[in-house]
């Protein structure tokens, strides 16, 4: 089946492009010859600004690879990727690093924080590295949004898993990046802590106008997104707007059975 192309969905923010990140004919292959494995097979995708996109798919479908490529962590074998106005497929390591520092935020599944720094230092770390002074008002708002005001002086070891993840969210938001990528950000949390994090991510999209792309295999997590992309065998195979947990689960089941019968 052909990969789908979505038209940009403007959200009344006319000055900047309506797409925070996009990829064209993105292919990623590992190895060569007989051992060649194609992780991404000519993917075209747009990540609209100010939206919350979830990427789903079975293990090995290429969803993490897609995220890593879009975030400039991994290099594409062929095709093009833009983050904002910048085509990152042509950038060297130095400029990629700067791009990650200035335009991209990350939330990983685990080990999101530096154990030697307290919560506040962890939040401002990307700006410290860049040598920028954080915007006080914005920082306070972010900290308040994720509910960490009381715990800023705590070390990661003194925080619960959920709190640590909230610090990671705050760090991603604090630098006002163009786009935030989450790699199973709730994968290590119980459902209550997980829903708290997802709630913050949702609010940061609604209230702060943040763009978020999240890889997950949890239908409940996906239901917080504006839109769900389904990946299989390195291609985007389907899309769902305004998903609910049940609808996502149904869809996954249908892929699953289709996968088995074919």
């Amino acid at each position, binding site marked *: 089946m052909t990969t789908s192309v979505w038209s940009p969905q403007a959200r009344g923010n006319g000055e900047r492009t309506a797409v925070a990140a996009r990829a064209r004919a993105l292919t990623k292959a590992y190895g060569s010859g007989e051992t060649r494995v194609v992780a991404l097979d000519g993917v075209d995708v747009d990540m609209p600004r100010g939206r919350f996109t979830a990427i789903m798919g079975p293990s090995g479908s290429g969803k993490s690879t897609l995220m890593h490529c879009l975030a400039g962590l991994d290099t594409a074998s062929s095709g093009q990727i833009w983050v904002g106005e910048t085509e990152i497929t042509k950038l060297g390591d130095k400029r990629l*690093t700067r791009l990650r520092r200035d335009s991209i935020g990350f939330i990983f599944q685990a080990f999101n924080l530096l154990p030697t720094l307290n919560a506040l230092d962890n939040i401002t770390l990307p700006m410290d*590295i860049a040598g920028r002074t954080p915007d006080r008002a914005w920082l306070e708002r972010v900290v308040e949004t994720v509910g960490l005001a009381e715990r800023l002086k705590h070390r990661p070891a003194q925080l619960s898993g959920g709190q640590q993840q909230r610090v990671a969210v705050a760090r991603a938001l604090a630098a006002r990046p163009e786009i935030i990528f989450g790699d199973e950000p709730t994968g290590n949390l119980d459902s209550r802590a997980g829903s708290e994090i997802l709630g913050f991510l949702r609010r940061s999209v609604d209230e702060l106008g943040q763009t978020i792309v999240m890889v997950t295999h949890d239908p409940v997590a996906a239901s917080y997104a504006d839109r769900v992309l389904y990946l299989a065998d390195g291609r985007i195979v389907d899309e769902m707007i305004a998903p609910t947990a049940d609808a996502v689960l149904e869809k996954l089941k249908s892929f699953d059975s289709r996968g088995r019968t074919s």
Partner: protein
Amino acid sequence: MTVLRTSLRNFLAHKGRMALSAVAVLLSVAFVCGTLVFTDTMNSTFDRLFATTFSDVTVRPHQVDNAQKTGAPDTLPASLQTRLAQVPGVADVVPEVSSGQVTVADSHNQDIGSSTGAPTIVSNWDRTQTRTVGITSGHAPQQPDEAVLDADTAAKHHLGIGDRLRIISARGDFTVRVGGIATFKTTNPGATLVYLDTGTAQRELLGSRDAFTDYALTAAPGVSNDQLKARVDAALGSGTYQVRTAAEEKAQGQKDIGSFLDPMKYVLLGFAGIAVLVGVFLIVNTFSMLVAQRTREIGLMRAIGSSRRQINRSVLFEAVLLGVVGSVAGIGAGIGLAVGLIKIMGALGMHLDTANLTIKAATPLVGLTLGVLVTVVSAMLPARRAGAISPMAAMRDAGTPADARAGRVRAAFGVLLTAAGGTALTLAATSATASAGSGLLALGVLLTLVGFVVVGPLLAGLVVRVLGAVTLRMFGPVGRLAERNALRNPRRTGATAAALMIGLALVSGLSVVGNSMVASATHQMDRSVGADFIIQSGNGRPISPAAAQAIHAAGHLAHVTDRADVAATVIAPDGTKDKTEVAAATPSYTDDLQAKTVQGKLIDAYGPGAMSVPAGWAKDHKVALGSRIGVAFTGGATAELTVRAITSDDTVFDRGAMYLNIAEARKYLPADTFPLNNMMFAAAQPGQQAEAAASLKAATADYPQVKVRDQAGYKDMIQQQLDQLLNMIYALLALAIIVAVLGVVNTLALSVVERTREIGLMRAIGMSRRQLRRMVRLESVVIALFGAVLGVGLGLGWGIAAQRLLSLVGLGVLSIPWTTIGVVFLGSAVVGLVAALFPAFRAARMNVLRAIATD
């Protein structure tokens, strides 16, 4: 078996880390084995040389104990030859002439003697010489003015047949022409050898055709050397002459070589000890880190049923592997080191043949035992810690947190040790006698060293924070991260820095003492030396009469002082006898060296029947002004002298000297046994310093062995001698520092591996490779500087305590070499940078994706 296989696999999996520890083992073992191989080679070479040098039995005049240094060899009458020839069992008697009290100069008046302390010997050419040397060009001395020179000296000074040599002895000097070159059949120990025909040697060196210095006897077939010796003794009267067999001569020679080699051997072994000590830190640290890294894996092994002992043993087995690998390489490196030392000796004039390299069976055995033992003992503690890991660790995420109580116990213990050491140092500094103080000093050094090692991890927090505030803050967030990283595992930081600390503490302690020595000597020269010129014989021999005469005849001088050390037995009023030397000088010596007195005036000691004694001796023997002292001059009469002055012991020059007038001393000794001047002093006429210097230079031009120095020149000489010594010590300590650097590399490399995910995270959120590299480098620098702070602090404490103690023996001025200390700090920062090169490179090259995916 599985345990062993796991150990082996672990060992191979951590090749890089093990290699660094193996280098530490290698260096220690190499030093020990190198020293052994070198000294064994030296000994076996000399054994071969001795085998050719000595005749079956040698007859010499008795060596007089405490003899006068007249510069003339002791002799035997020529008539003895016939008597010896008649002793039954004597096959051959060769009369010999030989003198070591000579200086040989080339036609440019350059001393061609050895610069390393090996002797210059002029002897007669006879058939016994051909056992040791062979004439390789020219011929044996045939004319009175012909000489044979040894090939090594000829090559070193570019001399050949036809060149002129001037031989300067106490009897005067004479010129010969090189007629032949002789080459050693075994090895040249570095001596300068000149052979003359027998008549010339007798005339010029002994002043008589009727004398020889010794007789070389050959035993007839069937007569043993011991039998021959007994017969000679019987024929001449036992004890009249010194009669020695070849074996006895050889034993004496070996003793002499030993006294030359032993200090060198102990210094080298001392440094091996330091290398071992520093290596222990490196090995303990490596195994601790490996165990910490493997906590989960070990927990799993425990969970599935491995016993504590099995875990313990598996770690120790890795240590044995490391010890064996390091030692085997170390033995090889040690042999290389010995070859290097032999080459250096060659450059200094002692030609040892590397083909004669002597490797005793014990050498590799000692090396292997040492290497394995050190490694296993070092790994003991980490192994025990590994055994103590609970099976629960398999389920936990990170390593077990440090035991807070253990930290407190450690702190208390370390502080206690340091305090005890500090007390010992303070007591040493204030101790009344040098002998009691030196014991305390050694104890204090040891205790403070161990104490610092123990409290190091606790000091790390404080010192690193202060260092961070001073240096790292200017590097912004990267600096802050580096500081935090260095503080993360204080025990590891402490142990890594401790390795560096040892070397640096020794360097700074020694340089404080060395600098204080120079400063004290300079200070005292400024205070008490009034002479404008200090005249010594360069090769440590007395100043020959001709040279002394020339100096007296030099112009523009206000006075010239003769000073001779006269051997005597001093008899105190309480009856104790001291075999010693008294300093006999012209009264003007009181101007040249204004020795402080505690009682009386120094000049009074130069009156007739007068002398001075030092304060310490006076106190020990209850001697006061006016006491009568017996002075039995060796080879002369006994004088009864009155103490007219008591000199202070607080001096670096002439400490403990007993002064009297040289004219007084001459009354009690025959002129031909009176010793030569061993030092002379001169003062210029007012305002004629330059003219006097030129005049002295001209007067001594013919005597290359005589060195005239003004005060500045003398200070320079003291400085140079000390610098030479210190440089050698620094060079050897560099080894300890190299091992310590390996420790820093090791710690950083492991930290980088441990923090893979952290590094991945930082790269993901935008830290550039450069920033990452800088972060690792700064961490390294801060650890190195921490080591430097501890080391310099400790070294200063040691140095100051030592100086205070040595102030009892004239080292009154404390001088702290700030430049050296500055260099140590800068050097440590550089060491940190160098150590971080590879770990930083590796951290920066880490693949971000793989780093964040690492489990």
